């Protein structure tokens, strides 16, 4: 069953067509990787799927409901959550406060003016659970700005998970991670696949080939090819445009 259906998606910045009449289908439950050189329009695509950017043309349908022009916060309510390529967390708040704030968004109204949030134990308990799931529970009370680069990337994923998404858009979760941290993040993503559909934008080809059910190659805002890991490895056009002369 197709969870997300993208048809003719177009977004221009001046003379540049960052997304050029793109068609894409994401099936429910799959890990669908999107690869392509920097500047191919991957982040622009994620921003349009998440609602941060409004496309110039085309349509995005979630479970057959039109969401093309829906705002970011309404799409989160419909179950589309995203992490950011450049870490984008609440740097002055602790990790647990970060996640608690994200949980607060989906847990009743935030127009409450008197009851101290600190007393809402359930929020912080669930926040610590989520941090444990991404491997950050020991660092829960550290201010996010002082977390290491890799830890901040884990917090990014925790913040996205806190909105209980059906579709998780991960924008280069492994960016800037060393070997061990990448392995940890790959394990985390693998553990999420059971109850989530994931769109994974990533450069780290090991992770992509290990995690992805299907891979789409994006070049100049256009879909060059979509298929299983084997199809993509074998595809000459992809090899020339992206993987360089020798495949990894």
């Amino acid at each position: 069953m197709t969870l997300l259906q993208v048809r003719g998606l177009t977004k221009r910045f001046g003379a540049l067509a960052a997304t050029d009449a793109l068609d894409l289908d994401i099936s429910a439950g799959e890990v669908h990787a999107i690869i392509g050189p920097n500047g191919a329009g991957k982040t622009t695509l994620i921003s349009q799927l998440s609602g941060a950017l409004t496309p110039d043309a085309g349509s995005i349908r979630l479970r057959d409901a039109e969401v093309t022009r829906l705002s970011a916060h309404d799409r989160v309510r419909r179950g589309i959550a995203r992490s950011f390529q450049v870490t984008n967390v609440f740097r002055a708040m602790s990790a647990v406060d970060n996640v608690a704030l994200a949980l607060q968004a989906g847990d009743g109204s935030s127009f409450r003016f008197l009851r101290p949030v600190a007393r809402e134990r359930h929020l912080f308990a669930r926040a610590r659970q989520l941090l444990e799931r991404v491997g950050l529970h020991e660092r829960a009370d550290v201010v996010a700005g002082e977390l290491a680069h890799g830890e901040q990337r884990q917090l990014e994923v925790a913040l996205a998970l806190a909105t209980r998404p059906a579709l998780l858009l991960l924008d280069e979760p492994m960016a800037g991670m060393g070997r061990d941290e990448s392995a940890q993040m790959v394990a985390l993503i693998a553990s999420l696949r059971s109850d989530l559909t994931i769109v994974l934008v990533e450069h780290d080809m090991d992770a992509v080939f290990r995690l992805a059910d299907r891979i789409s190659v994006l070049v100049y805002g256009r879909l060059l090819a979509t298929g299983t890991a084997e199809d993509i490895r074998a595809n000459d056009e992809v090899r020339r445009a992206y993987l360089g002369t020798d495949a990894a």
Partner: protein
Amino acid sequence: MTRRDLLPWVLLMVAALVPWLAGLLDQGYYVGFVRRMMIFAIAAASLNFIMGYGGMVSLGHAAFFGIGAYVVAIAMVHGVTSAWIAWPLAVLFAALAALAIGSISLRTRGVYFIMITLAFAQMVYYLAVGLKHYGGEDGLNLAQRSVIGLGLDLASETTLYYVVLVALATVMLLLNRAVGARYGRVLMGIRENETRMEAIGFATYRYKLVGFAIAGGLAGLAGALFANHNLFVSPAALHWTQSATLVVMVLLGGIGFRYGGLAGAVALLMLEELLAALTDYWHLPLGLILLAVVFFAPRGLAGLFARRGAA
């Protein structure tokens, strides 16, 4: 109850003793002086709520202060003297004005927001100047102070002083609770990272607008009290330099600190009083002191005493 939690109660005690002390030292003037400080503390605290916690730098906050004052004065002209009617009306009109101005201004960001709030406030200023029927540029005198009943007569300087003190204490209590509550967390999240707030499901525009209206309403309350304090209102209270003064108070006191607005109002008005007594050219030393604050106390007075993080 750490030392920091004790501080507000100590301040409350000191403020409560002022009229008695003033009477003892036969310095009746200071009842009015401290009362004026407390009124501006309410306005500055309401600005700190949206500026310090919500990141909304409004250079037009005095407009709502002025609207509150004018509502009470105009109601008085039409025979409505009861505080229970005029003051809530003042808060309501100021909040509605803030809702209208905020609904447009909050579509812009950064410096453009600063400028559009300034522009709307100038519009309100020129409307007040245009109200020839209510004194126009020369302002409007109030026949009497509002009537509050309950056996209290606001004509007495001390009674009005305590009413203002109660109002200030209530406003500070409510604002501090709001900062600690879910709404306050959302405001702080918006100040720090509005894109991430949208990405985790908050309709940030709505929260900002509500905050802007609340702060506008509270400034309207301060305006209503100011009209009673002075028994006179004029467009000068709405001029952009008044809005700039409120911003200066918040910065001087410590932006984003719970008592930043209050501390700034007290400090600035005391400074003005002290310097004006020393010289006619008191703007000069005041300007130099503010420059010193910018470079040596970037987080304001509260910043000098607080721990590293914002309270």
